[in-house]
């Protein structure tokens, strides 16, 4: 009996310890970034583009990277949605008798989901070279779109599968065509689409490898798709690589900004997921 109790105690201790390590690392990471970045967090960081001095600046801020990242992540998410929604609808509502094919396709998307983002970056770079494009906002958006499509398809696929089959039957019974039925289903999953958008945006804004060759970097806010655009992860990368302590500190401040953006997006999507499941009958 005593042995069993000890065993119980021992494994419970291991579980608590592991949970504490994982949970604690969240606060450690955020805490470190905050500790290192907060002294350099100024209003200018959010509202100004880099000024002169020390390569990427000790003056001004990283507005160029904030706006650039928003453009890249926003553009990629919109483009990704335009492609992913039809795929998810087709997969679920038009491939009825073709279980094998639809499951194979799902597996392909899962594989794409797992491909490291540097591969998408390299692929995007090849496409750009082929079309004779230079590193630009457009290039970055294309590479990140490739990255988020599998995420969007997978999320939308899951969400569509939560819609009861009876709702589709109800729409069909009223004489709807498949596309009209699909529109009813899309209406039913509106909160799910918003969740997919936020997940995709959060992933897109934090990725560095996909934009490394494709988006380029610039101190200016891009005014057209063909201009290079700075992104937050790359700004952090460059700033932390600087030998000057002040610029490094600004790198942590940039990391703090990125973390806060991602945190807001994550919390928003969590809240929406909860709301979504509450409204399901």
């Amino acid at each position, binding site marked *: 009996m005593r042995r069993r109790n000890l065993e119980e105690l021992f494994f419970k201790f291991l579980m608590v310890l592991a949970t504490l390590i994982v949970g604690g690392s969240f606060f450690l990471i955020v805490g470190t970034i905050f500790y290192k970045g907060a002294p350099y967090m100024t209003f200018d960081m959010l509202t100004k583009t880099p000024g002169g001095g020390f390569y990427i600046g000790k003056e001004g801020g990283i507005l160029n990277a904030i706006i650039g990242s928003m453009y890249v992540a926003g553009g990629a998410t919109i483009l990704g949605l335009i492609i992913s929604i039809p795929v998810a609808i087709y997969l679920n509502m038009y491939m*009825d008798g073709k279980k094998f094919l639809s499951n194979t396709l799902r597996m392909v998307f899962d594989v794409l989901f797992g491909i490291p983002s540097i591969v998408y970056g390299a692929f995007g770079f090849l496409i750009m070279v082929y079309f004779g494009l230079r590193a630009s906002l457009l290039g970055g958006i294309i590479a990140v779109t490739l990255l988020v499509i599998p995420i969007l398809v997978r999320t939308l696929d899951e969400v569509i599968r939560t819609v009861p089959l*009876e709702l589709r*039957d*109800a*729409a*069909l*019974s*009223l004489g709807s065509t498949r596309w009209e039925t699909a529109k009813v289903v899309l*209406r*039913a999953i509106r909160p799910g689409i918003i969740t997919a958008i936020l997940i995709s945006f959060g992933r897109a804004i934090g990725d560095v490898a996909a934009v490394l060759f494709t988006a380029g970097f610039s101190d200016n806010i891009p005014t057209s798709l063909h201009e290079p655009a700075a992104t937050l992860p790359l700004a952090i990368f460059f700033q932390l690589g600087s030998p000057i302590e002040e610029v490094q500190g600004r790198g942590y401040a940039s990391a703090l900004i990125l973390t806060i953006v991602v945190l807001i997006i994550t919390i928003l999507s969590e809240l929406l997921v909860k709301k979504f499941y509450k409204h399901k009958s």
Partner: protein
Amino acid sequence: MTKDKAHISVQDLNVHIGGNHILKDLNIDIPNKSVTSIIGPSGCGKTTLLKTFNRLHDTAADVKVTGKVLVDGEDIYDPNTEITHIRKKMGLLSQRPYPLPMSIYDNVAYGPRIHGTRKKQDLDIIVEKQLKATALWNEVKDRLHSSATRLSIGQQQRLCLARGLAVGPEIILGDESTSALDPVSTSIIEDLFVKLKQDYSIVLVTHILRQAARVSDYIIFVYDGRIVEYGKTEQVLRNPREELTKEYVKGYIV
């Protein structure tokens, strides 16, 4: 079998789902403007039979249907038959209400809209008429534009009936339509069926014999994918001809 003109005529129907033979050599004529109940134990193929009437199996994988189902003399499994046209002729009332994710008004107006009614005045008339037909008008007339999911489940089921009627069907298919409802809502729905049979042919799947007795004119008893007995309600419940039917309805006390 019946004096009435057959509205749905099933000829040599066989249905296989995923290699299982669910319905076996069925032949039935379902009469016009009356209520016909399909009864039988769980898993006997009642719902499968109902779904073959409006080809809802089309959306499921691995379903093979052979034989003919004639509606108004038209073979609905003919490849040239337009599926939306067939489904428009039949309103389906499922086990639980599944209102469309839109307002009460839009739920009823949905069918007419997809079939080409666009004018607001016309839609207003249809919505009011069908909500009155399903005894829902007085309960919802002040909140037509609020979400349909806020209604009680009994109200939702009546809304689903109104939604189906708004398309102008000839046939109403009910798949255990009252199984999720409380007794009061159940009796409202049952009364509606009895009232609606003046204008519609109604086919119900039910496992409640008392319900079949209350609302239906004819009863089809299905057992293990075959039709065991088909006749007037009185006769099937009181004087079943077949042993299997006797066994099944003996719990029913008149």
